[in-house]
């Protein structure tokens, strides 16, 4: 039979961002898949070489829209390492709150978002509504809903507002309550079971072959490969949390792991409020002078944090001037989002392509940076 060429994206409800896959199908089965990145390409890495160390702060959160704070954190960590700056204790804990809230925000969007490619739109709407509750809290803490620009080199931009603890605790309760509803709707739904259980497999060999990290890796190889545990940053070594792992990575396991991780994030945030210093400095100067003239000592550094999709890393080279010499971003979903699609989307049904994108955790801007 003759092959038909179909476009998934860039305008498609099942596509994640302005990304596209050209699928050559034979009947229902994908015979060949060509990922087509580039539609989001704004040259982030190149742009960063022409902006001051502080000016980049407006740019980096845009590399991954659903989870901007990881970018801020990893960038800040890089500069702090180069400049040999000690971040104030309280700032470490505030950063953890922000990072875990960001993890929940991102997980909830993709956990509810599984409703998109499966036709279960109620779950998507509930997920987005719940995400909005978190964005409200972000707005109160950082002054913005999506691009927070809150984690800055040297610490955080401002101290927490006065009633932040109560505000976040109230939010945690709302999340816990509504999450149960989402769990019923998604994880206990026979239709979802039928679509993603024992489907969209990610075998351990593929993980090693492509370099997949994050949930995909942990559910496939049954190892706690979470940077928060393996190479703790901020104060993750001082809080207790579990990292859900599995040895069988089908679509369902990965979706369920997101649900489990949200609970762990809530657990971390509650501990942070118990353990963090109640007052103290929240930002250290990374250099003398004003932000237009900050200089970062020459050197190179690779820093990484655990994002919802895996290891998110920045390789920063400084030549000691007021702008970075080179920044390279390791987008967490690059391996599966680019290489994986080409090689392993093949053989799946057309209607599984969107599910593949969703459960593998693909964030297209971080491929197109």
């Amino acid at each position, binding site marked *: 039979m003759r092959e038909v060429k179909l476009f998934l994206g860039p305008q498609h409800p099942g596509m994640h961002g302005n990304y596209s896959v050209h699928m050559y199908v034979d009947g229902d089965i994908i015979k060949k898949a060509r990922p087509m990145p580039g539609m989001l390409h704004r040259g982030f890495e190149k742009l960063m070489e022409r*902006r*001051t160390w*502080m*000016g*980049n*702060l*407006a*740019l980096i959160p845009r590399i991954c829209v659903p989870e901007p704070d990881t970018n801020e954190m990893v960038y800040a960590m890089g500069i702090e390492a180069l400049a040999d700056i000690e971040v104030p204790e309280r700032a470490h804990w505030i950063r953890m709150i922000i990072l875990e809230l960001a993890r929940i925000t991102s997980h909830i969007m993709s956990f509810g978002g599984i409703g998109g490619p499966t036709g279960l739109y109620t779950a998507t*709407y*509930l997920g987005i*509504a719940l995400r909005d509750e978190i964005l*409200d809290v972000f*707005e*109160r*803490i*950082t*002054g*913005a809903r999506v*691009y927070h*620009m809150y984690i800055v080199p040297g*610490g*955080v*931009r*401002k*101290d927490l*507002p006065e009633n932040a603890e109560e505000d976040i605790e109230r939010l945690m309760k709302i999340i816990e309550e509504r999450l149960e509803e989402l769990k*019923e709707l998604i*994880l*206990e*739904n*026979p239709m979802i*079971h039928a679509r993603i259980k024992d489907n969209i497999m990610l075998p351990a060999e593929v993980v090693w072959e492509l370099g997949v990290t994050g949930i995909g890796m942990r559910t496939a190889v049954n190892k706690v490969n979470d940077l928060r545990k393996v190479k703790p940053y901020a104060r993750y070594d001082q809080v207790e949390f579990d990292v859900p792992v599995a040895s069988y990575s089908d679509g*369902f396991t990965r979706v*369920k792991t997101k649900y489990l991780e949200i609970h762990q994030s809530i657990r971390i945030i509650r501990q942070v409020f118990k353990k963090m210093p109640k007052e103290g*400095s*929240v*930002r250290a*100067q990374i*250099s*003398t*002078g*004003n*932000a*237009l*003239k*900050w*200089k970062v000592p020459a050197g190179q550094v690779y820093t990484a944090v655990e994002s919802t999709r895996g290891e998110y890393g920045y390789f920063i080279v400084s030549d000691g001037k007021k702008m970075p010499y080179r920044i390279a971003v390791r987008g967490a979903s690059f391996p599966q989002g680019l290489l994986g699609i080409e090689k392993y989307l093949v053989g799946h049904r057309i209607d599984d392509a969107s599910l593949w994108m969703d459960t593998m955790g693909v964030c297209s801007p971080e491929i197109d940076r």
Partner: protein
Amino acid sequence: MDDKKSIFSPIRTWKNLFKEPFTVSNYDVFESPREAADNYRGFHVNDWEKCVGCGTCGEICPTNAIEMFEIESLEQDVGHEPERPSFDYGRCSFCGLCVDICTSDSLNMSKEYVHISTDYNSMKFIPKENGIHGIEFKDGYKRDDVSDLLDLGRYEMKHEGVERKTSFIEIVKGFSREMALAESSRCVECGVCTATCPAQMNIPEYINSVYEGNLKEGIEWIYKTNPLANVCGRICTHKCEDACVIGNRGESVAIRWLKRYIVDNTPEDEYEEAALSYVTEKVNGKVAIVGSGPSGLSCAYYLSTLGYEVDIFEKNDLPGGVIRYGGPEYRLPEESVVKDIEMIEKSGANFHCNTMLGEDIQLDELKEKYDSVFLGVGFSYSRSLPIPGHDHEDVIGAIKFLGEASDYTRGMREMPDIAEKIAVIGGGNVAFDVARTLVRLQFEKYGETSVSMAALESRDELPADLEEIEEGEEEGLLFNFGYGPQSIKIEDGKIKGLSTKKVISIFDDDGNFNPSYEEEENFIEATQVYIAIGQMAKYDFLSEEMKDNIEIVRGQVQVKENGQFEKYPWLFAGGDIMRGPDIINGVETGHNAAKAIDEYIRSN
């Protein structure tokens, strides 16, 4: 976790009937719009009263959304540019870095976040205090101490302690490399200082040279507008620092000391190469310059660089005028003056010392021999104070004394005859120069000091710089500020002291200078009195005809903006006799006159 649902699970969905909906009704959206968070980064508000138009917001803006817009109704003022920021909300990313770096605390953000238009051009606004739409909105994002992106504190240079009064050693130590780099990184390069500097020096550029570690380039920037780099790096009146926008919220950038850092730390060969980089080929044209003070030197340097043959006539033994004979060694070491004058000599100017205009040489002669003449004779005579006893031989003028003291410190004469108890009349920088020099000389001669100062103004109103007053007090000067001198008591031909009275007011109701005093007398014991209440010029060298044709107001000749005399186009003036005493004014008027002389010679 059990992934299987129970058989009753469909019934559970009924509970949703009794829940609040997640969705928001249209009514809520339009009738009672949601209020943003207290910290919200919405549209900008800018308090025009506070805004100084420095444009730093535009510098940091990562999206180039901010442009400075000239506002006609605003006036250029010290530290104020007549510009306000305009925001292109088609580009703005609402990061708020502009708020965090605002030097004047005028720029903030509001909770306003709705602007709907299909017209691209309608996205540009110049926000005022009530936002972009002119509607009052609650305050949103504000800068605080944590988010502040300026470095507000000065990196102070080391100073000599109070034991400094035992010698003429320079008080202020220079910046170390690290400190200079740190201080230079505080500058936001707004250029408000340049607009305020009389000589319009390229201040942000030379500060940036320090920041980039390229001192030779710094020398080039300085010499572009000011050939007295060493002198101005030490004793300039630094109007730039009063204007510096960092001073609005913190301490202004130490511009003068950074200039000093450049001149002190550039290697000699690079310094010379940079300072003489503007020298061009010789051209036909001869210019005579009378007086080798700041204006004469400045004029000579720029004319030499343009290729003219320049002859400078100086009445004293050494060139320099006020910088040679006025600035005391502890503020302006001799080698700084020498270095500046050397560079000007190397640029091609010829010095003729011990040549007094009106005695050794006449203006008519100069007119014959040269294409143009520049007068920079300066205010080189002290003003006298018409009180009883002022004509006594132990009543000494400031200029005469400072000249003698300078010659003494450079080993060219004996120590001036200093009494054990001295009174100094005056409250300006010159009075402090006199008093502090006297303290040092007294210490050397007697091992102890007694110098009393008296001036009409109270301590807070004194025209002298604050650092002069504070340092003078540390060095043991006795202050009688707010006391007006009435007479100098003389007994048996010798001065006994100065009689003063407490001042009630300096000016009368009409604003005229007419001091009134309390009855009670305050007597200051002294056997010498120094008068430092101002300087003046003598115009004896002008012919009678010229005196009739040249208008002189408050001791200053009235000339065109470029220094040219209306009736005598070959004659130019600058410095004190044009603008009053200030070194940087001298540099500026000298430079302007050089340009005008060049134009004059080329047009003839």
